[in-house]
């Protein structure tokens, strides 16, 4: 902005008036930054002062029936009417966003609940996509037959990755999973006889609907509702898992590995189930992705994709289902709607990340643990969600 280098004419242009603007701008920004930080500190102090448990607006929304039933009803109406009101383009990006919702929820099991930083999540996504493409190419298997196969293959690869990294934690685990993701991508790129290399596989059939031929638009709407159903299914399953015996074991593992083991939790098995269950969703979504785009190649499964899914989980709120859904919708839909600013997309993305981490490190919606109500202090613990 200040210096302009012209390599052809070998001239360096100095734009001094711009320098002043940048200086003044960053000066003012630094004050805004300080002010916000101070306000944040004040806020946290206030929280600790009052012994009352502060109930955030998001928590209120979920606990008060009068609030969440109309919200859910409104959402349902919107979801059902959406494809009939908006264009094919809108339906298509919404379907993509829903795929990321499910991917985010899957990764949320591994990263958010079990606390295992996985940077190679996209590998399982690739496994699912290639499972459908190759099984269809070689054996003519249909979408519905491969969907469970993709999920199972995802789980299998999850366990495969899980075994060597059982002893690793934190940074080391992140590096190994990153490597795993790259290995899968490189295999797909270079093993031409198996995966057709960088040119990928084309003409993958869309999901069938009782053998009917669907027009492109109906196929899109069908895909959309299919994704809505799968997203709801995922939400239900993940919600049940996180409040179950297994879910508690995952969280305990995240919080303190040594104490978790001392409480009788099998560390090995808990880690492997987390990897397997997380990868299951990625495998399933891979199949959907292949069917939606009808063409796949290794370029769709780069590290950037893993980073994107991880950002969804971190930005949305680790361990929180609503947070992850919101995070996915924001991170996938906003770039689509803000195409006018597409040049600045990565800058905005980075800035949003930094601001989030400083002011709200727990994510958009932080994970709220389930509360149990007990009648008085009697021994009969009558649990109510």
């Amino acid at each position: 902005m200040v210096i302009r280098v012209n390599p052809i004419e070998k001239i360096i242009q100095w734009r001094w008036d711009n320098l002043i603007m940048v200086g003044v701008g960053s000066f003012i920004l630094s004050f805004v930054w300080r002010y916000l930080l101070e306000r944040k500190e004040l806020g946290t102090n206030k929280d600790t002062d009052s012994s009352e448990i502060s109930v955030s607006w998001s928590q209120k929304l979920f606990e008060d029936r009068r609030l969440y039933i109309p919200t859910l009803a409104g959402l349902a109406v919107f979801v059902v009417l959406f494809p009939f009101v908006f264009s094919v383009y809108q339906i298509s990006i919404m379907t993509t966003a829903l795929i990321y919702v499910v991917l985010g929820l899957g990764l949320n099991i591994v990263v958010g609940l079990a606390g295992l930083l996985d940077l190679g999540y996209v590998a399982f996504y690739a496994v699912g996509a290639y499972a459908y493409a190759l099984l269809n190419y070689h054996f003519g298997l249909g979408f519905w037959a491969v969907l469970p196969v993709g999920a199972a293959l995802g789980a299998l690869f999850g366990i495969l990755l899980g075994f060597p990294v059982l002893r690793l934690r934190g940074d080391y685990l992140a590096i190994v999973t990153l490597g795993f993701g790259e290995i899968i991508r490189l295999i797909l790129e270079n093993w031409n006889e198996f995966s057709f290399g960088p040119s990928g596989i084309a003409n993958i059939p869309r999901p069938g609907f009782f053998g009917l031929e669907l027009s492109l638009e109906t196929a899109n709407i069908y895909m959309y509702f299919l994704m809505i159903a799968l997203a709801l299914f995922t939400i239900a399953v993940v919600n049940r898992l996180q409040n179950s015996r297994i879910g508690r074991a995952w969280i305990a593992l995240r919080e303190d590995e040594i104490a978790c083991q001392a409480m009788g939790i099998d560390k090995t098995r808990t880690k492997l189930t987390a990897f397997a269950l997380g990868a299951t969703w990625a495998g399933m979504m891979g199949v959907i992705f292949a069917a939606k785009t009808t063409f796949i190649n290794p370029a769709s499964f780069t590290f950037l994709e893993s980073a994107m899914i991880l950002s969804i989980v971190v930005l949305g709120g680790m361990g929180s289902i609503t947070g992850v859904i919101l995070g996915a919708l924001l991170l996938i839909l906003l770039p689509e709607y803000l195409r006018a600013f597409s040049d600045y997309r990565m800058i905005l993305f980075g800035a949003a990340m930094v601001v989030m981490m400083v002011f709200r490190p727990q994510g958009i919606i932080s994970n709220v643990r389930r509360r149990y109500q007990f009648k008085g202090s009697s021994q009969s613990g009558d649990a109510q969600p």
Partner: protein
Amino acid sequence: MSVGGINLKGHLNPEMLSRRQELTIIDDMKPILEVKKLTMDFGGLRALDHLDLDINKGEIIALIGPNGAGKTTFFNCITGMYIPTRGDILISPPGKQTQRINGLKPNKITEKGMARTFQNIRLFPTMTVLENVMVGRHCRARAGIIGAIFKGPSTRLEEQNIVDISYHMIERVGLSSFVNEQAKNLPYGAQRRLEIARAMATDPFLILLDEPAAGMNPLETRELVELITSIRETEGFTILLIEHDMKLVMSLSDRIFVMDYGRKIAQGTPEEIRNNPQVIKAYLGDEIYA
């Protein structure tokens, strides 16, 4: 003059006889934890040196010794955190056979019935108090992934049981007003008590407490002593504790083991230990004789 409870006049000495019966009863009962010649080397450092120890059912045993004597290493060995270099750790859970537990994983040992707390509190900070205790029930429950997803009647019943038992444990240690509070927000003394509740929730026959009174004020310590005595009385737990607070150790324990430099230097009742010259030497040095 009497020999073996029968005095020379041919009469039974009632006092001696009752003591003898008591002795035979104790002989019949195997110690629930028996440690034989336990040795632990860290490279060239011998942290535990041929340590022998036994605990009978219902006892409160204290393990004391100066800093670095190897007390926590001993705990870590018998709970499976470390694998001992040599020696045997034998347990005889009530109603079960004696088994050797060297080298088993910590979670297996907890499953067999030995639960521990930690010197530096190791709770699950962002989980609620109830959930912390519910994690303790993990090894006594069976529900798997399928059960969690479909939530059939048996899973529901099991969950309800876990909640009930966990709540009972929380009431037991007097934390029922904190049930839904995150563990990290609890006051220090309450966190220590929560660790005990969590250990109790695993259905142990032996509870190992690693410095339960560390950092507590006198009032909290007194409450802790009451809690430990009462869980021994009502639930019948056997307790092995490491502690530096001598007042607590002397008032609470039935027997005391004293360690120094990885070796056992004395064992006996609180009175015997109080007057044992070797113990005094280990704690205060040689000047005591000067």
